[in-house]
Protein backbone atom coordinates (compact mmCIF):
# COMPACT_ATOMS: atom_id res chain seq x y z
CA UNK A 1 0.00 0.00 0.00
CA UNK A 2 2.68 2.46 1.09
CA UNK A 3 4.89 1.48 -1.83
CA UNK A 4 1.93 2.11 -4.06
CA UNK A 5 1.43 5.60 -2.69
CA UNK A 6 5.11 6.27 -3.23
CA UNK A 7 4.81 5.07 -6.79
CA UNK A 8 1.94 7.47 -7.48
CA UNK A 9 3.83 10.37 -5.95
CA UNK A 10 6.84 9.56 -8.11
CA UNK A 11 4.58 9.37 -11.13
CA UNK A 12 3.07 12.74 -10.26
CA UNK A 13 6.57 14.19 -9.99
CA UNK A 14 7.45 12.89 -13.44
CA UNK A 15 4.22 14.22 -14.92
CA UNK A 16 4.84 17.59 -13.29
CA UNK A 17 8.35 17.78 -14.65
CA UNK A 18 7.22 16.70 -18.10
CA UNK A 19 4.45 19.31 -18.26
CA UNK A 20 6.79 21.99 -16.94
CA UNK A 21 9.29 21.36 -19.71
CA UNK A 22 6.44 21.39 -22.24
CA UNK A 23 5.19 24.66 -20.81
CA UNK A 24 8.62 26.25 -20.88
CA UNK A 25 8.98 25.44 -24.54
CA UNK A 26 6.55 28.31 -25.07
CA UNK A 27 7.89 30.79 -22.56
CA UNK A 28 6.14 33.80 -24.05
CA UNK A 29 2.79 32.10 -23.83
CA UNK A 30 3.52 31.08 -20.26
CA UNK A 31 4.34 34.66 -19.31
CA UNK A 32 1.15 35.96 -20.89
CA UNK A 33 -0.87 33.32 -19.04
CA UNK A 34 0.66 34.42 -15.77
CA UNK A 35 0.03 38.08 -16.55
CA UNK A 36 -3.65 37.33 -17.16
CA UNK A 37 -3.81 35.93 -13.65
CA UNK A 38 -2.00 38.96 -12.26
CA UNK A 39 -4.46 41.15 -14.09
CA UNK A 40 -7.39 39.22 -12.69
CA UNK A 41 -6.10 39.52 -9.15
CA UNK A 42 -5.59 43.22 -9.81
CA UNK A 43 -9.21 43.53 -10.91
CA UNK A 44 -10.43 41.77 -7.78
CA UNK A 45 -8.31 44.03 -5.60
CA UNK A 46 -9.54 47.12 -7.48
CA UNK A 47 -13.10 45.94 -7.02
CA UNK A 48 -12.82 45.43 -3.28
CA UNK A 49 -10.77 48.59 -2.77
CA UNK A 50 -13.61 50.46 -4.46
CA UNK A 51 -16.10 48.76 -2.19
CA UNK A 52 -14.11 49.36 0.98
CA UNK A 53 -13.71 53.03 0.06
CA UNK A 54 -17.42 53.28 0.82
CA UNK A 55 -17.77 51.02 3.83
CA UNK A 56 -15.58 49.89 6.70
CA UNK A 57 -16.75 46.28 6.67
CA UNK A 58 -18.72 43.84 4.59
CA UNK A 59 -20.97 41.40 6.44
CA UNK A 60 -18.80 41.83 9.53
CA UNK A 61 -15.52 41.30 7.67
CA UNK A 62 -13.08 44.18 8.06
CA UNK A 63 -10.92 45.18 5.11
CA UNK A 64 -7.79 43.19 6.08
CA UNK A 65 -9.91 40.16 7.01
CA UNK A 66 -11.73 40.36 3.73
CA UNK A 67 -8.51 40.63 1.75
CA UNK A 68 -7.18 37.63 3.61
CA UNK A 69 -10.29 35.79 2.47
CA UNK A 70 -9.74 36.93 -1.13
CA UNK A 71 -6.11 35.77 -0.99
CA UNK A 72 -7.16 32.47 0.49
CA UNK A 73 -9.73 31.90 -2.22
CA UNK A 74 -7.29 32.96 -4.91
CA UNK A 75 -4.56 30.60 -3.69
CA UNK A 76 -6.95 27.70 -3.27
CA UNK A 77 -8.51 28.23 -6.65
CA UNK A 78 -5.04 28.50 -8.15
CA UNK A 79 -4.12 25.17 -6.63
CA UNK A 80 -7.24 23.50 -8.00
CA UNK A 81 -6.71 24.99 -11.43
CA UNK A 82 -3.05 24.01 -11.50
CA UNK A 83 -3.66 20.42 -10.58
CA UNK A 84 -7.05 19.43 -11.89
CA UNK A 85 -8.79 21.97 -14.03
CA UNK A 86 -7.11 21.43 -17.40
CA UNK A 87 -7.40 17.69 -16.96
CA UNK A 88 -11.08 17.71 -16.12
CA UNK A 89 -11.70 20.06 -18.98
CA UNK A 90 -9.95 17.72 -21.38
CA UNK A 91 -11.98 14.77 -20.17
CA UNK A 92 -14.88 15.94 -22.34
CA UNK A 93 -12.71 15.69 -25.40
CA UNK A 94 -11.39 12.28 -24.35
CA UNK A 95 -14.93 10.94 -24.10
CA UNK A 96 -16.09 12.51 -27.32
CA UNK A 97 -13.20 11.24 -29.40
CA UNK A 98 -12.88 7.91 -27.61
CA UNK A 99 -9.29 8.61 -26.68
CA UNK A 100 -10.21 7.74 -23.13
CA UNK A 101 -9.61 4.10 -24.17
CA UNK A 102 -5.87 4.72 -24.08
CA UNK A 103 -6.01 5.95 -20.51
CA UNK A 104 -8.20 3.08 -19.36
CA UNK A 105 -5.72 0.56 -20.75
CA UNK A 106 -2.81 1.80 -18.67
CA UNK A 107 -1.89 -0.10 -15.51
CA UNK A 108 -2.56 2.98 -13.37
CA UNK A 109 -5.62 4.11 -11.53
CA UNK A 110 -7.82 5.76 -14.15
CA UNK A 111 -9.04 8.52 -11.86
CA UNK A 112 -5.46 9.48 -11.10
CA UNK A 113 -4.61 9.60 -14.77
CA UNK A 114 -7.72 11.54 -15.74
CA UNK A 115 -7.34 14.10 -12.97
CA UNK A 116 -3.60 14.69 -12.78
CA UNK A 117 -2.20 13.98 -16.23
CA UNK A 118 -1.32 17.58 -16.96
CA UNK A 119 -0.22 20.09 -14.41
CA UNK A 120 -1.14 23.55 -15.60
CA UNK A 121 1.87 25.56 -14.50
CA UNK A 122 0.36 28.78 -15.80
CA UNK A 123 -1.89 29.05 -12.76
CA UNK A 124 0.67 27.83 -10.22
CA UNK A 125 1.90 31.38 -9.46
CA UNK A 126 -1.66 32.11 -8.29
CA UNK A 127 -0.89 30.17 -5.15
CA UNK A 128 2.04 32.48 -4.47
CA UNK A 129 0.06 35.59 -5.35
CA UNK A 130 -2.76 34.52 -3.05
CA UNK A 131 -0.22 33.80 -0.32
CA UNK A 132 1.32 37.24 -0.78
CA UNK A 133 -2.10 38.86 -0.47
CA UNK A 134 -2.77 36.84 2.68
CA UNK A 135 0.54 37.89 4.23
CA UNK A 136 -0.08 41.55 3.42
CA UNK A 137 -3.55 41.30 4.95
CA UNK A 138 -2.11 39.68 8.09
CA UNK A 139 0.49 42.42 8.46
CA UNK A 140 -2.15 45.12 8.02
CA UNK A 141 -4.31 43.44 10.57
CA UNK A 142 -1.44 43.23 13.05
CA UNK A 143 -1.95 39.48 13.36
CA UNK A 144 -0.11 37.62 16.09
CA UNK A 145 1.45 34.25 15.34
CA UNK A 146 -0.51 31.26 16.58
CA UNK A 147 0.77 27.80 15.72
CA UNK A 148 -2.57 26.08 16.19
CA UNK A 149 -4.27 28.46 13.79
CA UNK A 150 -1.54 28.10 11.18
CA UNK A 151 -1.58 24.30 11.39
CA UNK A 152 -5.36 24.14 11.17
CA UNK A 153 -5.24 26.60 8.31
CA UNK A 154 -3.06 24.28 6.25
CA UNK A 155 -5.18 21.24 7.07
CA UNK A 156 -8.41 23.01 6.12
CA UNK A 157 -6.81 24.41 2.97
CA UNK A 158 -5.94 20.87 1.92
CA UNK A 159 -9.48 19.74 2.74
CA UNK A 160 -10.91 22.68 0.82
CA UNK A 161 -8.87 21.70 -2.21
CA UNK A 162 -10.10 18.12 -1.90
CA UNK A 163 -13.72 19.28 -1.66
CA UNK A 164 -13.37 21.57 -4.67
CA UNK A 165 -11.71 18.76 -6.61
CA UNK A 166 -14.49 16.33 -5.73
CA UNK A 167 -17.15 18.72 -6.97
CA UNK A 168 -15.19 19.34 -10.12
CA UNK A 169 -14.83 15.61 -10.72
CA UNK A 170 -18.57 15.12 -10.26
CA UNK A 171 -19.34 17.90 -12.74
CA UNK A 172 -16.81 16.45 -15.17
CA UNK A 173 -18.20 12.97 -14.84
CA UNK A 174 -21.55 14.06 -16.24
CA UNK A 175 -19.70 14.29 -19.55
CA UNK A 176 -19.86 10.54 -19.95
CA UNK A 177 -23.60 10.80 -20.52
CA UNK A 178 -23.82 14.26 -22.03
CA UNK A 179 -20.90 13.75 -24.42
CA UNK A 180 -20.62 17.45 -25.04
CA UNK A 181 -20.16 19.25 -21.79
CA UNK A 182 -18.56 22.17 -23.46
CA UNK A 183 -19.50 24.70 -20.86
CA UNK A 184 -17.75 22.84 -18.04
CA UNK A 185 -15.41 25.77 -17.61
CA UNK A 186 -18.37 28.09 -17.37
CA UNK A 187 -20.20 25.73 -15.05
CA UNK A 188 -17.25 25.43 -12.77
CA UNK A 189 -16.91 29.19 -12.70
CA UNK A 190 -20.55 29.57 -11.73
CA UNK A 191 -20.55 26.80 -9.19
CA UNK A 192 -17.34 27.97 -7.56
CA UNK A 193 -18.75 31.48 -7.37
CA UNK A 194 -20.42 30.22 -4.20
CA UNK A 195 -17.02 29.75 -2.60
CA UNK A 196 -15.91 33.23 -3.59
CA UNK A 197 -17.67 35.13 -0.80
CA UNK A 198 -17.86 34.92 2.99
CA UNK A 199 -20.71 32.83 4.28
CA UNK A 200 -21.97 35.80 6.29
CA UNK A 201 -23.37 37.45 3.17
CA UNK A 202 -26.01 34.72 3.15
CA UNK A 203 -28.30 36.53 5.52
CA UNK A 204 -31.99 37.22 5.33
CA UNK A 205 -35.19 35.27 4.97
CA UNK A 206 -34.33 33.10 1.99
CA UNK A 207 -30.56 33.46 1.88
CA UNK A 208 -29.81 31.95 5.25
CA UNK A 209 -31.29 28.54 4.44
CA UNK A 210 -29.46 28.73 1.12
CA UNK A 211 -26.19 29.43 2.91
CA UNK A 212 -26.82 26.52 5.25
CA UNK A 213 -27.67 24.28 2.31
CA UNK A 214 -24.32 25.06 0.68
CA UNK A 215 -22.52 24.59 3.99
CA UNK A 216 -23.98 21.38 5.35
CA UNK A 217 -25.63 19.57 2.41
CA UNK A 218 -23.50 20.62 -0.58
CA UNK A 219 -20.52 21.99 1.35
CA UNK A 220 -18.97 24.24 -1.27
CA UNK A 221 -19.10 27.24 1.05
CA UNK A 222 -16.69 25.74 3.56
CA UNK A 223 -13.94 25.52 0.93
CA UNK A 224 -12.40 28.97 1.50
CA UNK A 225 -14.53 30.13 4.42
CA UNK A 226 -13.20 27.72 6.98
CA UNK A 227 -9.47 28.27 6.34
CA UNK A 228 -9.94 32.05 6.31
CA UNK A 229 -12.05 32.03 9.46
CA UNK A 230 -9.61 29.76 11.26
CA UNK A 231 -6.80 32.15 10.53
CA UNK A 232 -8.24 35.63 11.04
CA UNK A 233 -11.60 35.28 12.74
CA UNK A 234 -13.35 32.81 15.01
CA UNK A 235 -11.69 29.46 15.50
CA UNK A 236 -14.66 27.09 15.39
CA UNK A 237 -13.60 23.46 15.99
CA UNK A 238 -16.97 22.21 14.78
CA UNK A 239 -16.48 23.76 11.34
CA UNK A 240 -12.95 22.36 11.14
CA UNK A 241 -14.22 18.85 11.85
CA UNK A 242 -17.06 19.35 9.39
CA UNK A 243 -14.59 20.36 6.69
CA UNK A 244 -12.41 17.32 7.28
CA UNK A 245 -15.39 14.96 7.27
CA UNK A 246 -16.82 16.64 4.16
CA UNK A 247 -13.51 16.25 2.35
CA UNK A 248 -13.29 12.53 3.11
CA UNK A 249 -16.92 11.82 2.25
CA UNK A 250 -16.83 13.82 -0.96
CA UNK A 251 -13.60 12.26 -2.14
CA UNK A 252 -15.14 8.84 -1.63
CA UNK A 253 -18.45 9.84 -3.21
CA UNK A 254 -16.93 11.45 -6.28
CA UNK A 255 -14.68 8.44 -6.81
CA UNK A 256 -17.64 6.07 -6.66
CA UNK A 257 -19.58 8.27 -9.03
CA UNK A 258 -16.68 8.45 -11.45
CA UNK A 259 -16.26 4.68 -11.47
CA UNK A 260 -19.98 4.18 -11.88
CA UNK A 261 -19.99 6.55 -14.85
CA UNK A 262 -17.09 4.79 -16.51
CA UNK A 263 -19.28 1.70 -16.76
CA UNK A 264 -21.56 3.66 -19.07
CA UNK A 265 -18.67 4.77 -21.24
CA UNK A 266 -19.13 3.31 -24.68
CA UNK A 267 -15.99 4.51 -26.41
CA UNK A 268 -16.26 5.94 -29.89
CA UNK A 269 -14.81 4.21 -32.85
CA UNK A 270 -14.13 6.00 -36.05
Amino acid at each position, binding site marked *: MLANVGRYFRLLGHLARYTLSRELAFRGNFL*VKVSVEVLWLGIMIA*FYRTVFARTSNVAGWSEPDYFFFVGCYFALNGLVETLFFENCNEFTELVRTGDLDFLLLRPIDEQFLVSLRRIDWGTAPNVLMGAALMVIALVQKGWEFDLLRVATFFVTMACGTAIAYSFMLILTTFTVWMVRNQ*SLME*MWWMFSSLARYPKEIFSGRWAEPLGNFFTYIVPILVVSNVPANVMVRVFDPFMVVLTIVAAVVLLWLSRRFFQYALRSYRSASS
Partner: protein
Amino acid sequence: MTPPDGLAAPSAPAPSSAATLAVEPLPRHAPPRGPIATLKKHTKILRVSLSERMTYRSDFLLGTILRFLPLVTTILLWKSIYESSGASELAGFRYREMIAYLLLTHISRMFSSMPGLAAGIARDIREGTLKRYLIQPVDMIAYLLTYRVAHKLAYITMSIIPYVALFVVCRGYFDGIPDALTLAAYALSLVLSFLVGFYFEASVGMVGFWFLEVTSLLYIVMTLNFFISGHMLPLDLLPSPWSTILKALPFQYMAYFPAVVFLRKITGWNLVLHLLLELTWAVVFMVLSRGLYRLGLKRYSAYGG
Protein backbone atom coordinates in the same frame (compact mmCIF):
# COMPACT_ATOMS: atom_id res chain seq x y z
CA MET B 1 -8.92 32.22 -12.73
CA THR B 2 -10.64 34.22 -15.40
CA PRO B 3 -14.16 35.47 -15.95
CA PRO B 4 -16.51 33.17 -17.85
CA ASP B 5 -16.52 35.10 -21.08
CA GLY B 6 -12.79 35.08 -21.33
CA LEU B 7 -12.60 31.42 -20.58
CA ALA B 8 -15.30 30.40 -22.93
CA ALA B 9 -13.34 31.67 -25.87
CA PRO B 10 -10.47 29.24 -26.36
CA SER B 11 -12.17 26.22 -24.86
CA ALA B 12 -15.26 26.60 -26.94
CA PRO B 13 -14.16 28.26 -30.11
CA ALA B 14 -17.05 29.32 -32.30
CA PRO B 15 -18.28 25.95 -33.46
CA SER B 16 -16.35 25.51 -36.64
CA SER B 17 -18.20 27.12 -39.42
CA ALA B 18 -16.50 24.79 -41.89
CA ALA B 19 -19.18 22.16 -41.63
CA THR B 20 -22.05 24.57 -41.99
CA LEU B 21 -20.50 26.28 -44.92
CA ALA B 22 -19.88 23.00 -46.71
CA VAL B 23 -23.58 22.18 -46.52
CA GLU B 24 -24.35 24.98 -48.93
CA PRO B 25 -24.78 23.49 -52.38
CA LEU B 26 -22.71 25.69 -54.59
CA PRO B 27 -23.82 26.20 -58.14
CA ARG B 28 -21.36 24.94 -60.70
CA HIS B 29 -21.47 28.06 -62.77
CA ALA B 30 -21.32 31.69 -61.79
CA PRO B 31 -23.28 32.23 -58.56
CA PRO B 32 -26.37 34.44 -58.74
CA ARG B 33 -25.68 38.00 -57.72
CA GLY B 34 -27.71 40.87 -56.42
CA PRO B 35 -29.18 41.81 -53.07
CA ILE B 36 -31.92 39.15 -53.15
CA ALA B 37 -29.45 36.35 -53.78
CA THR B 38 -27.27 37.65 -50.96
CA LEU B 39 -30.22 37.82 -48.64
CA LYS B 40 -31.22 34.25 -49.58
CA LYS B 41 -27.70 33.06 -48.99
CA HIS B 42 -27.58 34.61 -45.56
CA THR B 43 -31.03 33.30 -44.63
CA LYS B 44 -29.69 29.83 -45.33
CA ILE B 45 -26.58 30.44 -43.23
CA LEU B 46 -28.87 31.65 -40.47
CA ARG B 47 -31.04 28.51 -40.64
CA VAL B 48 -28.16 26.04 -40.66
CA SER B 49 -26.42 27.83 -37.81
CA LEU B 50 -29.63 27.91 -35.79
CA SER B 51 -30.17 24.17 -36.00
CA GLU B 52 -26.52 23.60 -35.13
CA ARG B 53 -26.91 25.63 -31.97
CA MET B 54 -29.94 23.64 -30.89
CA THR B 55 -28.22 20.25 -31.06
CA TYR B 56 -26.88 20.04 -27.53
CA ARG B 57 -29.78 21.13 -25.42
CA SER B 58 -29.09 19.37 -22.13
CA ASP B 59 -25.67 20.95 -21.97
CA PHE B 60 -27.28 24.32 -22.50
CA LEU B 61 -30.02 23.78 -19.95
CA LEU B 62 -27.63 22.79 -17.16
CA GLY B 63 -25.58 25.86 -17.99
CA THR B 64 -28.62 28.11 -17.76
CA ILE B 65 -29.58 26.80 -14.35
CA LEU B 66 -26.09 27.20 -12.96
CA ARG B 67 -25.86 30.66 -14.49
CA PHE B 68 -28.12 32.04 -11.80
CA LEU B 69 -25.89 31.04 -8.90
CA PRO B 70 -23.42 33.90 -9.39
CA LEU B 71 -26.38 36.27 -9.64
CA VAL B 72 -27.60 35.17 -6.25
CA THR B 73 -24.21 35.64 -4.63
CA THR B 74 -23.75 39.02 -6.32
CA ILE B 75 -27.08 40.23 -4.97
CA LEU B 76 -26.18 38.99 -1.51
CA LEU B 77 -22.76 40.62 -1.63
CA TRP B 78 -24.20 44.01 -2.56
CA LYS B 79 -26.91 43.65 0.03
CA SER B 80 -24.21 43.17 2.67
CA ILE B 81 -22.21 46.09 1.29
CA TYR B 82 -25.20 48.44 1.53
CA GLU B 83 -26.20 47.16 4.94
CA SER B 84 -22.66 47.42 6.31
CA SER B 85 -22.01 50.88 4.88
CA GLY B 86 -25.25 52.22 6.30
CA ALA B 87 -25.56 54.53 3.29
CA SER B 88 -28.72 54.57 1.25
CA GLU B 89 -26.87 55.63 -1.88
CA LEU B 90 -23.45 54.74 -3.29
CA ALA B 91 -22.31 56.94 -6.19
CA GLY B 92 -25.91 57.84 -6.97
CA PHE B 93 -27.11 54.24 -6.94
CA ARG B 94 -29.63 53.18 -4.35
CA TYR B 95 -29.49 49.50 -3.31
CA ARG B 96 -32.39 48.52 -5.57
CA GLU B 97 -30.89 50.39 -8.50
CA MET B 98 -27.57 48.67 -7.96
CA ILE B 99 -29.12 45.21 -8.17
CA ALA B 100 -31.22 46.27 -11.16
CA TYR B 101 -28.03 47.55 -12.78
CA LEU B 102 -26.18 44.30 -12.21
CA LEU B 103 -29.08 42.29 -13.60
CA LEU B 104 -29.27 44.56 -16.62
CA THR B 105 -25.57 44.20 -17.40
CA HIS B 106 -26.30 40.51 -17.93
CA ILE B 107 -28.72 41.49 -20.66
CA SER B 108 -26.10 43.83 -22.12
CA ARG B 109 -23.49 41.10 -22.11
CA MET B 110 -25.97 38.72 -23.67
CA PHE B 111 -25.89 41.01 -26.69
CA SER B 112 -22.32 42.24 -26.67
CA SER B 113 -20.23 39.23 -25.64
CA MET B 114 -18.89 37.16 -28.53
CA PRO B 115 -17.39 33.98 -27.11
CA GLY B 116 -15.02 32.40 -29.57
CA LEU B 117 -15.32 34.96 -32.34
CA ALA B 118 -11.81 36.36 -32.23
CA ALA B 119 -10.33 32.97 -31.39
CA GLY B 120 -12.18 31.45 -34.35
CA ILE B 121 -10.87 34.07 -36.77
CA ALA B 122 -7.33 33.65 -35.47
CA ARG B 123 -7.62 29.89 -35.85
CA ASP B 124 -8.89 30.20 -39.41
CA ILE B 125 -5.87 32.33 -40.20
CA ARG B 126 -3.39 30.08 -38.44
CA GLU B 127 -4.64 26.82 -39.83
CA GLY B 128 -5.30 28.16 -43.27
CA THR B 129 -9.02 27.36 -43.22
CA LEU B 130 -9.58 31.01 -43.99
CA LYS B 131 -9.25 30.18 -47.66
CA ARG B 132 -12.74 28.79 -47.79
CA TYR B 133 -13.96 32.35 -47.58
CA LEU B 134 -11.64 33.35 -50.34
CA ILE B 135 -12.73 30.71 -52.83
CA GLN B 136 -16.44 30.78 -52.05
CA PRO B 137 -18.70 33.67 -52.91
CA VAL B 138 -19.20 34.70 -49.32
CA ASP B 139 -17.59 37.54 -47.44
CA MET B 140 -16.01 36.36 -44.20
CA ILE B 141 -17.08 39.20 -41.93
CA ALA B 142 -20.63 39.19 -43.31
CA TYR B 143 -20.80 35.41 -42.89
CA LEU B 144 -19.56 35.59 -39.30
CA LEU B 145 -22.02 38.36 -38.57
CA THR B 146 -24.96 36.31 -39.82
CA TYR B 147 -23.66 33.27 -37.97
CA ARG B 148 -23.41 35.32 -34.81
CA VAL B 149 -26.92 36.73 -35.23
CA ALA B 150 -28.22 33.15 -35.44
CA HIS B 151 -26.18 32.19 -32.40
CA LYS B 152 -27.56 35.14 -30.46
CA LEU B 153 -31.14 34.48 -31.63
CA ALA B 154 -30.92 30.87 -30.47
CA TYR B 155 -29.30 31.89 -27.23
CA ILE B 156 -31.75 34.65 -26.47
CA THR B 157 -34.84 32.59 -27.33
CA MET B 158 -33.63 29.75 -25.15
CA SER B 159 -32.76 32.06 -22.28
CA ILE B 160 -35.99 34.01 -22.45
CA ILE B 161 -37.91 31.74 -20.10
CA PRO B 162 -35.30 31.68 -17.32
CA TYR B 163 -34.62 35.39 -17.75
CA VAL B 164 -38.29 36.36 -17.68
CA ALA B 165 -38.66 34.24 -14.57
CA LEU B 166 -35.63 35.94 -13.07
CA PHE B 167 -36.92 39.42 -13.78
CA VAL B 168 -40.35 38.53 -12.41
CA VAL B 169 -38.72 37.27 -9.22
CA CYS B 170 -36.53 40.36 -9.06
CA ARG B 171 -39.20 42.85 -10.13
CA GLY B 172 -38.99 44.43 -6.67
CA TYR B 173 -35.61 45.86 -7.63
CA PHE B 174 -37.08 47.78 -10.55
CA ASP B 175 -39.26 50.90 -10.54
CA GLY B 176 -41.68 49.45 -13.05
CA ILE B 177 -41.16 49.30 -16.78
CA PRO B 178 -39.82 52.53 -18.29
CA ASP B 179 -41.78 54.49 -20.88
CA ALA B 180 -41.88 53.46 -24.53
CA LEU B 181 -39.29 56.00 -25.61
CA THR B 182 -36.76 54.78 -23.06
CA LEU B 183 -37.49 51.20 -24.06
CA ALA B 184 -36.90 52.06 -27.69
CA ALA B 185 -33.60 53.74 -26.79
CA TYR B 186 -32.71 50.70 -24.69
CA ALA B 187 -33.43 48.31 -27.55
CA LEU B 188 -31.36 50.46 -29.88
CA SER B 189 -28.48 50.61 -27.40
CA LEU B 190 -28.55 46.81 -27.16
CA VAL B 191 -28.49 46.29 -30.91
CA LEU B 192 -25.62 48.76 -31.15
CA SER B 193 -23.81 47.03 -28.29
CA PHE B 194 -24.06 43.81 -30.28
CA LEU B 195 -22.43 45.56 -33.24
CA VAL B 196 -19.75 47.23 -31.10
CA GLY B 197 -18.98 43.87 -29.47
CA PHE B 198 -18.93 42.01 -32.76
CA TYR B 199 -16.69 44.38 -34.67
CA PHE B 200 -14.42 44.93 -31.69
CA GLU B 201 -13.81 41.19 -31.32
CA ALA B 202 -13.48 40.76 -35.06
CA SER B 203 -10.78 43.45 -35.05
CA VAL B 204 -8.97 41.67 -32.23
CA GLY B 205 -9.18 38.39 -34.15
CA MET B 206 -7.61 40.02 -37.22
CA VAL B 207 -4.44 40.57 -35.20
CA GLY B 208 -3.92 36.87 -35.94
CA PHE B 209 -2.63 37.85 -39.37
CA TRP B 210 0.42 39.36 -37.69
CA PHE B 211 0.86 37.09 -34.68
CA LEU B 212 0.36 33.35 -34.95
CA GLU B 213 -0.68 32.85 -31.35
CA VAL B 214 -3.25 35.32 -30.07
CA THR B 215 -5.23 33.20 -27.60
CA SER B 216 -3.30 34.68 -24.70
CA LEU B 217 -3.81 38.21 -25.97
CA LEU B 218 -7.51 37.41 -26.14
CA TYR B 219 -7.51 36.30 -22.52
CA ILE B 220 -6.03 39.62 -21.48
CA VAL B 221 -8.48 41.64 -23.56
CA MET B 222 -11.50 39.68 -22.31
CA THR B 223 -10.43 39.84 -18.68
CA LEU B 224 -9.87 43.55 -18.86
CA ASN B 225 -13.09 44.09 -20.76
CA PHE B 226 -15.00 42.31 -18.02
CA PHE B 227 -14.06 45.06 -15.61
CA ILE B 228 -13.85 48.19 -17.75
CA SER B 229 -17.17 47.55 -19.47
CA GLY B 230 -18.85 47.94 -16.10
CA HIS B 231 -19.96 44.35 -15.78
CA MET B 232 -18.76 44.03 -12.20
CA LEU B 233 -19.89 47.37 -10.87
CA PRO B 234 -21.21 50.69 -12.19
CA LEU B 235 -18.35 52.77 -13.51
CA ASP B 236 -19.57 55.72 -11.41
CA LEU B 237 -18.44 53.92 -8.28
CA LEU B 238 -14.77 54.03 -9.26
CA PRO B 239 -12.56 56.85 -7.91
CA SER B 240 -12.62 60.06 -9.92
CA PRO B 241 -10.11 59.92 -12.76
CA TRP B 242 -10.99 56.31 -13.56
CA SER B 243 -14.71 56.71 -13.89
CA THR B 244 -14.23 59.58 -16.34
CA ILE B 245 -11.61 57.71 -18.34
CA LEU B 246 -13.61 54.51 -18.57
CA LYS B 247 -16.75 56.36 -19.57
CA ALA B 248 -14.88 57.87 -22.49
CA LEU B 249 -13.84 54.45 -23.82
CA PRO B 250 -15.97 52.31 -26.14
CA PHE B 251 -16.05 49.36 -23.73
CA GLN B 252 -18.73 50.96 -21.57
CA TYR B 253 -21.21 50.40 -24.41
CA MET B 254 -20.89 46.65 -23.98
CA ALA B 255 -22.36 46.56 -20.47
CA TYR B 256 -22.65 49.85 -18.61
CA PHE B 257 -24.42 52.06 -21.11
CA PRO B 258 -27.50 49.95 -22.00
CA ALA B 259 -28.08 49.31 -18.30
CA VAL B 260 -28.05 52.98 -17.31
CA VAL B 261 -30.30 53.78 -20.26
CA PHE B 262 -32.87 51.36 -18.89
CA LEU B 263 -32.51 52.86 -15.41
CA ARG B 264 -33.10 56.35 -16.91
CA LYS B 265 -29.78 57.63 -15.57
CA ILE B 266 -29.01 59.07 -18.98
CA THR B 267 -31.84 61.01 -20.56
CA GLY B 268 -32.63 63.71 -23.10
CA TRP B 269 -29.93 65.02 -25.40
CA ASN B 270 -27.27 63.25 -23.42
CA LEU B 271 -28.93 59.98 -24.37
CA VAL B 272 -29.11 60.91 -28.04
CA LEU B 273 -25.47 61.98 -27.95
CA HIS B 274 -24.38 58.69 -26.38
CA LEU B 275 -26.41 56.63 -28.82
CA LEU B 276 -24.71 58.48 -31.65
CA LEU B 277 -21.34 57.88 -30.00
CA GLU B 278 -22.15 54.20 -29.67
CA LEU B 279 -23.05 54.08 -33.35
CA THR B 280 -19.79 55.85 -34.14
CA TRP B 281 -17.80 53.28 -32.21
CA ALA B 282 -19.59 50.47 -34.04
CA VAL B 283 -18.67 52.08 -37.35
CA VAL B 284 -15.09 52.72 -36.21
CA PHE B 285 -14.61 49.08 -35.28
CA MET B 286 -16.32 47.97 -38.48
CA VAL B 287 -13.94 50.04 -40.57
CA LEU B 288 -11.04 48.85 -38.44
CA SER B 289 -11.88 45.16 -38.80
CA ARG B 290 -12.46 45.50 -42.55
CA GLY B 291 -9.23 47.45 -42.94
CA LEU B 292 -7.23 44.94 -40.93
CA TYR B 293 -8.81 42.10 -42.90
CA ARG B 294 -7.84 43.67 -46.19
CA LEU B 295 -4.29 44.43 -44.99
CA GLY B 296 -4.01 40.99 -43.47
CA LEU B 297 -5.02 39.20 -46.63
CA LYS B 298 -1.96 40.70 -48.30
CA ARG B 299 0.20 38.91 -45.74
CA TYR B 300 -1.86 35.77 -45.61
CA SER B 301 -0.11 32.69 -46.96
CA ALA B 302 -2.75 29.94 -46.53
CA TYR B 303 -0.92 27.36 -44.48
CA GLY B 304 -2.36 23.91 -44.13
CA GLY B 305 -3.79 21.46 -46.60
